[in-house]
C-alpha cells in the first residue's frame, strides 16, 4: 500500500544506504530534496551573475581587457573537477563500510578543493599586484571578481563543511549509516564543481 506514495521519480538512496527516519515507504529523502531546493536557488543567483558578466562583456570604458590579463587556470580546473570524482569514491567507500578508505578519499577531496582555492588566490594576487586590475578598475574587474569570487566563496563554504565531516571522521563518528547525509553534502560539492564549468566557460573561454 505504500507504493501509492511513491509518485516522485527521484533516485534518492544509493544501494547500501541505510534509511534514516522512515522504513518502508519510498518517498524521496528529505536531505536530497532540501539540497536540491538549495541548489535551484543558488543556480538562480549564479545565473544572474553570469548574465551580468555576459551583458557587460566588452562594454568597458577603459582597460585592461580579459585577453590582456587572464590566463587559463587549467591545473586549477582539473583539481576541482577531479574532486567530484574523489568525493564519489569516498562515498562509495563509506557505503561499503570501509572507513579508512573513506577518510583517505575525503582528505584528497579537501586537498584538491584547497588547492583550487589557493590557485584562485594566486591568480587574484597576480591580477591585482602585477596587472593592476581591481574590482573598481572597470566593468571587467567588477564582473570578474564578483562572479569568480561568488564561486570561490561557495568553495570556501563547501570546504568548511567537508572539514567538519573530516573532523568527525577522524574521531570515528562518521559511520556507514551516515552515508545518506554525506551524500547530501556531496551533492552540494558536485554543484560547486558544475558551476565552475559554467564560470570557466563564460569567463575564460567566451569572455577571453
Amino acid at each position, binding site marked *: *500500500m*505504500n507504493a*501509492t*506514495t511513491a*509518485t*516522485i521519480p527521484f533516485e534518492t538512496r544509493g544501494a547500501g544506504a541505510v534509511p534514516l*527516519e*522512515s*522504513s*518502508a*515507504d519510498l*518517498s*524521496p*529523502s*528529505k536531505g536530497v*530534496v*532540501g539540497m536540491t*531546493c*538549495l541548489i*535551484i*536557488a*543558488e543556480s*538562480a*543567483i*549564479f*545565473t*544572474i*551573475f553570469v548574465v*551580468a558578466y555576459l*551583458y*557587460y562583456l566588452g*562594454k*568597458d*570604458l577603459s582597460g585592461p581587457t580579459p585577453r590582456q590579463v587572464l590566463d587559463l587556470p587549467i591545473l586549477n580546473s582539473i583539481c576541482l573537477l577531479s574532486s567530484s570524482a574523489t568525493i564519489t569514491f569516498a562515498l562509495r567507500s563509506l557505503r561499503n563500510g570501509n572507513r579508512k578508505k573513506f577518510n583517505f578519499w575525503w582528505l584528497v577531496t579537501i586537498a584538491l578543493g584547497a588547492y583550487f582555492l589557493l590557485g584562485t588566490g594566486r591568480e587574484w594576487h597576480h591580477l591585482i599586484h602585477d596587472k593592476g586590475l581591481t*574590482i*573598481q578598475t*572597470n*566593468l571587467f*574587474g*567588477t*564582473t570578474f*571578481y*564578483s562572479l569568480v569570487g*561568488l564561486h570561490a566563496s561557495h568553495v570556501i563554504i563547501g570546504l568548511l563543511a567537508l572539514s567538519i565531516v573530516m573532523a568527525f571522521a577522524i574521531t570515528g563518528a562518521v559511520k556507514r549509516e551516515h552515508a545518506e547525509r554525506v551524500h547530501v553534502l556531496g551533492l552540494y560539492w558536485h554543484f560547486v564543481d558544475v558551476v565552475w564549468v559554467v564560470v570557466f566557460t563564460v569567463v575564460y573561454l567566451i569572455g577571453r
Partner: protein
Amino acid sequence: MNGRVTTGDIGTAIPLGPIAATDKTIFDHIHSWLVTVDHKRLGLMYIIYALVFFVVAGIEASLIRIQLATPNNHFLSPQVFNQLFTMHGTTMVFLVGMPMIFGFANYLVPLMIGARDLAFPRLNAFGFWLSVFGGLLLYFSFIGGEGMAGAGSAPDVGWFAYAPLTGKAFSKGHSTDYWILGIMIGGFGSIATAANIITTILSMRCRGMTLAKMPLLAWLNLIMCGMVLIAVSPLTAAQIMLLLDRFAGSHFFDTQAGGSATLWMHFFWIFGHPEVYVLIIPAFAFASEIIPVFSRKAIFGYPVMVGATLAIAFVSLSVWAHHMFTIGMTSTGNTFFAISTMMVGIPTGIKIFNWLGTMWGGKLRFDTPMLFSTAFLFQFLIAGLTGIMLAAAPFNWQLNDSYFVIAHFHFVLVGALIFMIFAAVYYWFPKATGRLLSERFGKWHFWLFLIGFHMTFVTMHVPGILGMPRRIYTYEAGRGWGIWNLVCTIGVAFQVIGTLIFVINILLSLRKGRPAGNDPWDAWTLEWSTSSPPPEYNFAEIPTVKSRRPLWDIKHPSDPDWKYE
C-alpha cells in the same frame, strides 16, 4: 502499521492533558515561544509578525493618503513622503505578504498532509528569526539610518530601488543599505522556508496521500515555494551587486563607468513579477479550500486547477519586462512581453471559472470567510482586466507610473490577497485557538472594508487616467484630480475602521469567542480531524487517506469520495 513514524517514537512522550501551567511564569511562556521549533507556533508567530507590520504599513499608507487628499497640501514634507511610500511598499511586500503566506503555509501544510512538523523544524525557526531580524533591521533605519536629511532616515528610493538613485552619489548615508540588507536577510529566510515546505510536501505526506490526492492548498503552496526559489534569488543576487557597488566601488549599476541602470530594472522585475504570483497563489490556495466548504461541494476541476497554477507559475517567469515598456524596448521585445503577459489571463480565467463552477448549484453559506472569498472573485477579476489593459504596450506607454497602475496592483494585493488573508484568518482561527471569531464583528469588518476598498481603489483609476503620476507628494489645484483623491482618502477611513474591528474581534474572541470544536465548518481536510488547537504532535496516529476529502469519507461511509476519484 509500518508507516513513516513508528509508534515507538512517540509512545510515552504524548502529554495526556494540558501541560501543567500553574508553576510556569510568564517568562517561561515567552521563553518557550522564543525557542520553539513547532511549525504551528512558528506559523502563528509569522502571522502575528505580519499583522503587526500590516498595521504599521497601513499607518504609512494612511499618512500618504492624508497628504494627497487635497491639492497643495503640506501635511508631510517631500522627504518624509518619499520615505513613507518606500517603506509602505517594501513593508507590505516583504514584511506583510511574505511572512503572512509563509505563516499560513507553516501552520497548515503539515496538518493538511498528515505530518507532525515540517521536514526541518530547526531550519524553520532559523528562517522565521531571519525574517524578523531583516524586518527589524529595516525599521531600525527610522532611528539609525543616516540619510541625506541627517540622522534617523528611512530608505527613500522606492520599493524597487531603481539605479542610479541607489548609487553612493545619490543615496548618501546608510538608509539604502538598510533597505538592501533588511530585504536580503529576509530573503534568505524566505528561501530556507520555501525549501523546507517543498521538502515537507514531497517527503512527508501521510499514507495514501498521493500528489493527486493532496489538498489544493498543499499543491499551490508547493508551486509557490518553487517560485520563491527561482524568483527571490535573483533579487538577492542583484542586491549583492548593489552592495558591492556601494561598499567596494564596483560599477554594476554605475552609469558613469558604463554600468547599466536598465540591468537593475531587469534583475529587479525578474524577481518582482514572479513575486506578485508568489503572493497571489496562496490567496488562490485559501479560495480553493474555503469556497468548496461553504458551497458544500467538492472543488470543481481539481486537476485543471493544479495545471492552471503551474501554467501561471511558468508563464509568470517570462513577463517581467511589462513593468518596463516605457524604457523603449524593440518592437519584438514589446510584442513578446505583451503577449506573454496577456497569456497569464488564460489559466487565471480558468481558475475563476472553476471557483464559480464550484459555487454553481451549491448550497452556499455566507459566513464571513465566504463573504471575503466572494468579494475576492469579483475584485480579482477586475484586477485581471486592468492587468490585460496594462499589458498592451501602447496603452502602457500612456499610463505607466500613473495612479492607474497603483489602482491596478492594489486591486491584486488588497482586493485579492488581503481579502483572502482575512478570509483565511476567519476560517482557520478556530483551528488555531479553539474559538470562533465573532460573526457579527466579522460582517461589520467585511462590509466596512469592502466599501472602503472600493471607494479608495476604484476611484484611484480615474486620476491615473487623468494623468496623475505616482510618487508625487502634492499637486496643483486646477488638474481635476482633487475630488478623486479626496474620495480615495475618505475610503481609507472605512478600511481603517474595518481593520480596527478585525483586531478587536481577534482580541475579544481569543478570550470570549464561542468554543469551536474540532470541525466548526463541517469541512473535509485533515486539519479538522484533530483537536482545536491541535496538540504539539498534530495527530496521535498518522492518518491514512483514500481520497481528496478524507473527512467526507469518514462522515459518509456509505458514499465515500474514493469511489469516484
